[in-house]
Structure formats: structure tokens, C-alpha cells
């Protein structure tokens, strides 16, 4: 099991995950630093991610979209705030509209990734800080609507199966 622990704090509004990998820090760093590698794991198989812009340096920007099963696109952006190779990456991320511009109403989250050498193995710690409970609420409300739409889609598929051939 790669995931060692997770910690959720609803008062401090943060999420922390610790994982250990059977690879050195230089190799694990590449899953972030190399756009092609990042695209292989950022989005789920049903919503693969494409990073159109990826400036992997302090002050750099990233713009990406995830493509859903029906071809719909969900867009996001990053602003990279710290890059210390093989050790530390911090970035701010948020939702983007169809033009790739940030959606300010949805706020932004701050992610901190650290890599630690365990003698050939690597411990990766990732912390995400949310801005406010209101931001979480908005995201939850949106997630709920998405979930309902997905569930309704499954009902449509079931009904279609019953249709006379």
C-alpha cells in the first residue's frame, strides 16, 4: 500500500496525505516535473488530463483540462510558487472557465508537496489548504450536482437497455 496515512481537519480546513514509494526522490520528482508523466496520473482514466501549458518553475503557470466520457471539458489552472528539485513543490490551483481564465467565485487552494529520501525509498507528503468553509460548501454543492447528473445518466442507460430492440 502506497498510501500511509491521510488526515482531514474540518476546522483548520486542510487535507494531508502521506505516501511512500519504492523509488528514489529523483524518480518520484519526475511524476511532477515531467508533463507527460503528470498527465498519466492527474486525471482518472475516465477523465484524462491534458496540460496545455506547464511552466515548471517558480512563478510558472499551468493550464489544463480534463475530458469526460461525453467529451465535456473541466478546466483548471495552477500558479507554481516554489520549486526545489527532488524536495519541494508548492502551487496554488483553482477552476478555470472555458477560456482557461480563473473562476474567482470558486476560490483557490494551496498545495504543498514534499519529498523525503528514506534510503532509496521516497516519502511524499501532500497538504492542501482550503480558503474557507464557504469555499468547501460551494465545492460540495457543485460535487453534489455533478453526482446527481452522473446518477441520472446511469438511470438513462438502464432505461435504454430496456427499450425494445
Amino acid at each position, binding site marked *: 500500500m502506497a*498510501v500511509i496515512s491521510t488526515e482531514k481537519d474540518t476546522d483548520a480546513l486542510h487535507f494531508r*496525505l502521506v505516501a511512500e514509494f519504492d*523509488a528514489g526522490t529523483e*524518480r518520484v520528482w519526475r*511524476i511532477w516535473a515531467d508533463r507527460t508523466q503528470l498527465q498519466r*496520473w492527474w486525471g482518472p482514466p475516465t477523465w484524462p488530463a491534458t496540460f496545455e501549458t506547464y511552466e515548471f518553475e517558480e512563478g510558472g503557470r499551468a493550464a489544463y483540462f480534463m475530458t469526460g466520457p461525453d467529451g465535456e471539458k473541466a478546466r483548471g489552472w495552477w500558479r507554481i510558487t516554489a520549486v526545489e528539485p527532488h524536495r519541494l513543490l508548492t502551487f496554488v490551483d483553482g477552476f478555470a472557465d472555458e477560456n482557461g481564465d480563473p473562476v474567482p467565485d470558486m476560490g483557490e487552494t494551496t498545495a504543498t508537496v514534499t519529498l523525503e529520501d528514506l534510503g532509496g525509498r521516497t516519502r511524499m507528503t501532500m497538504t492542501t489548504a482550503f480558503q474557507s468553509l464557504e469555499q468547501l*460548501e460551494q465545492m460540495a454543492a457543485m460535487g*453534489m450536482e455533478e*453526482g*446527481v447528473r452522473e446518477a441520472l445518466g446511469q438511470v438513462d442507460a438502464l432505461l435504454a437497455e430496456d427499450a425494445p430492440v
Partner: protein
Amino acid sequence: MVVVQVGEDEVDRLFQALADATRRDIVSRVLVAEYTVSGLAEQYAMSFAAVQKHVAVLERASLVTKEKRGREQIVRGRVDAVQRARRLLDEYEHIWRQRIDRIGDLLAEDASDQD
């Protein structure tokens, strides 16, 4: 992911309640802040009575509560704030656990390449 544990007829009510775009919009709003029925009616190009009907459908599906305050009726989302935060953080955890699994698979490819 809708995390609501309910019986089958309740699921029907829930789906019926959320099958309408206006009702979904009302739920999104009242989860973030409380609204009066008249305050909600101002948001949509429809009559007060029509909005009141939508709220009644949502209330039957246990998605919102309605409470009289003076002459106004206050509508609120039913899940309390901390539960909502917890639910979102749970979903967030799920997203990241899957990402970590994919990273593990990616790193495992290197190992098999070296064989």
C-alpha cells in the same frame, strides 16, 4: 458522488426532486446560505407560487428545511456545515488515493522495464 443513505422510495423522491434544473439550483444556493422563499423567487423568472412548489418538492425529499420566521419562510440546506466539509474532504481523499495508486503503477512500469 451522492452520499445519502435512504430507502428506495426515498431515492425516487430524491431523483425526482433533483431532476429539475431550478430545484438543483435552489439546493446549491441554500446549502451555502439561507434564503427566504421570496428571496429565492427573486432569483428566477417564475411566480412566487411556482418557486414555493419547487421548495415543497425539495422539502418532501428531505433536501431542505422550511421554517417560519415572522411572515417569512426560511429555506436551508439540510446537511450541516461540518458534515458537508467532511463529505467534501472524504471525496477529496478518494481522488488523491486513486492518484497515488496511479503513481504507484507508473513507478512499477520502470521496475518491469529494468527486468
